[in-house]
């Protein structure tokens, strides 16, 4: 099957430092892939490069199309959405305005798109006129994921969505991501620190250390095949 997202020798430099070094990754349609690694391994830089926020060398292909030099809004249009770290939302704007703004990327943002997000997250619908800054951490994370989903992406990049969340909410987030794949045909590329939970929903895992991929395996086999000390 042709990969949905594929990179070839993807490299990210900040000044003289190499944050991501020659990474080859592949995400298939309807697949959930997790990237694990220590803090500062370059996982966030990798996602930022995939979404076009930092200049990168190498090649990125989305469904066979070379998107390497594309601006973020173009990648969004093509179906690549990003949920950055830290449950980021527009705190001074209402929940509805947040979702509208995310949907503005699509030339025709429809109320149906908003409605579908509200269907997944009824709590957000209840609070749709509330300022996003007044939501709890978990609700903000839901909103952030909702903002990623509202554009009906083909692949969703998610950066550490469970930071600071209570265990029950962590499970909820994972379930939502898994559901995104199931009901929306969306692939997910997930960066996560919480191994147990992310391995539970992932199909494949990459291990990243100091900017490089040092391990790759099926999720079920990951724990056995990898020396965790090397990764963390």
């Amino acid at each position, binding site marked *: 099957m042709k990969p949905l997202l594929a990179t070839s020798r993807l490299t990210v430099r900040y000044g003289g430092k190499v944050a991501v070094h020659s990474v080859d990754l592949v995400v298939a349609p309807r697949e959930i892939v997790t990237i694990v690694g220590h*803090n500062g391994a370059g996982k966030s830089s990798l996602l930022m490069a995939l979404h076009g926020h930092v200049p990168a060398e190498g090649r990125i292909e989305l469904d066979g199309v070379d998107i390497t030099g594309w601006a973020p809004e173009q990648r969004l249009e093509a179906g690549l959405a990003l949920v950055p770290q830290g449950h980021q939302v527009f705190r001074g704007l209402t929940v509805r305005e947040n979702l509208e703004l995310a949907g503005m990327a699509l030339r025709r943002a429809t109320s149906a798109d908003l409605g579908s997000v509200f269907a997944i997250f009824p709590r957000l619908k209840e609070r749709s006129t509330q300022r996003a800054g007044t939501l709890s951490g978990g609700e903000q994370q839901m909103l952030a994921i909702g903002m990623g989903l509202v554009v009906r992406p083909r692949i969703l990049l998610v950066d550490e969505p469970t*930071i600071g969340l209570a265990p029950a909410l962590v499970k909820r987030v994972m379930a939502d991501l898994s559901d995104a794949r199931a009901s929306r045909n969306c692939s997910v590329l997930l960066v996560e*620190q919480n*191994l147990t939970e992310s391995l539970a929903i992932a199909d494949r895992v990459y291990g990243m250390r100091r900017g490089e991929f040092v391990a790759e395996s099926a999720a079920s086999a990951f724990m056995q095949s990898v020396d*965790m*000390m090397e990764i963390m």
Partner: protein
Amino acid sequence: MDYLVSLMVFATIYTIAALSFNLLIGHAGIFSVAHAAFIEIGAYATGILTSRMIGLFPVALVLGAVVSAAVGWVFARATLRVSGDYMVVASFALLVIFGQIFTNWISVTGGGIGLASIPRPGFVDGALLGSDVLFCLMCLFIAALMYFVSHRLVYSPLGRVLRALRENQDAAASLGKFVRRFRGVVFAVSSAMAAVSGSLYAHFMSYISPLDFTVQLTVLVLTMVIVAGTGRLWTVPVASALVMGITDGVRYVDLPEQIAPGAQQVIYGLLLLLFAVLRPEGLLGRKKDEAVRAARHWRSFDEPPRTTGAVGSMAAGSLRGKGGETNNVNAAPKEMLRIDGLNKHFGGLHVIRDVSVTVERGKVTALIGPNGAGKTTLFNLVTGAVPPDGGVVTYEGRRISGLRPDQVAQAGIGRTYQDLKLFAQLTCEENVMTAFPDQPGESAAAALFARGRVQRREAEIRARTAEILAFLGLADKRNELASDLGYAEAKMLALARVLALDPQLLMLDEPCSGLGRAALDKVCSVMNELVAQGRTICLIEHNMALVRQVADRGIFLEHGSLVASGDVETLMANEGLRRRYLGLAETA
């Protein structure tokens, strides 16, 4: 001839003004536009003194400088929590305020009409420096003196601290530097020197008015500083003369009447714009050797420093603990750091919830938990970087919650940061040297007058720095800029820097994350050595295998709450904890 002499005088006046401005915006990195106000204070203070009350010029000069320094010092203190854009705004306000005061306090300053009949300097009653040439010589002498003072200060431990503060204020504070004092000092010195230039101007022109000291003056001096290159020294007189020559030269070009009034300002406006866009580093371009030049001035660059112990060895005693050799762990109380009911809210979030825990002396305690649990926040609360909303932190029986970070550092607690916060534009050697306490050279007075004492301590610090750098495998990176280091080396430098503080309690935030095998082993052995010397370590880490290897005790934090604490092996063996929080299914 007369014209040349008066050009010289102006060149010296502008040089002094530019030197003092550069000290503030270049070396210390504090961008204030109020400089014209301080020049004005000097001009008026001395002008009033010598014209109304015939006083000796040198006395008036000093008094003017003191008044200006006092105003600068107060302003620095008032704007401590204000930086960047706010500083620009606040300094504009100060400029306006003083401009208005000098314009409207008519009885004292003569108001908009100005202050006239300012006499030429008289040193001995009656003998006046009437001759322009003599006045010019005096100006040259004073300018040379000001240059000498600048030179001394910039290439001193004080200059080093100022540059460190410019690079990363938080890190400097966590290494024991009292930020407020240094800001006050640099502002005072800068303002005093500015006043001197104003005084010279007033006594040369014999007449001043508020219109001489508007924001245009600040911009003109700013142009000189930008052309010279912020943070440089010898280019300042050159740039001052150059800019002055260009803007003054306009007067001698036959311009149509329509253009003439605005010509000067357009000229230096263009000059400033050109440099700001095309050559922001100044005439000479990039100054990546700023630090190296600084090191050179202590004649230290090329010769390896004398060391007291064997280089590279981790001999006990090469890093002596505080309080002499008796780090007798059995005599001192077991509890070193005590946290009681600590609470913190950020916005609406309760990020630290009623945490009570202790850190035992002489042990390695690991603070673990998922991202977002509040571990770094806890560090910040203990070290004073962030004030707690409730609860008490006690260190060695002394309450430290509510103290400033520099006070906590001086008490004996040293911390590193997850994002390192190195002083990027300083060399490795300077990064470590900055951190040492008790540096007489950090006082302006000592840097100027007690050279011998300062140099002795510098030599001592350099030797100890060499040992520390060698201890961490950075000996050959001594003169490299911190920003040029690789990932592992940068982490080592952060560790080296905090060791200079000679702390009894080290709080390390992810010292090992991302390190390769070799570097990991090095850090572990360093930590073991530190413990062997009687120090205590508390570290935040995610690598569980590493934690089991180095730590004796563990503190589990999740969601801002203390979940468990105690012996590491016991904690690790608890299946429930592991499954819930570590994400590890099996014993490694």
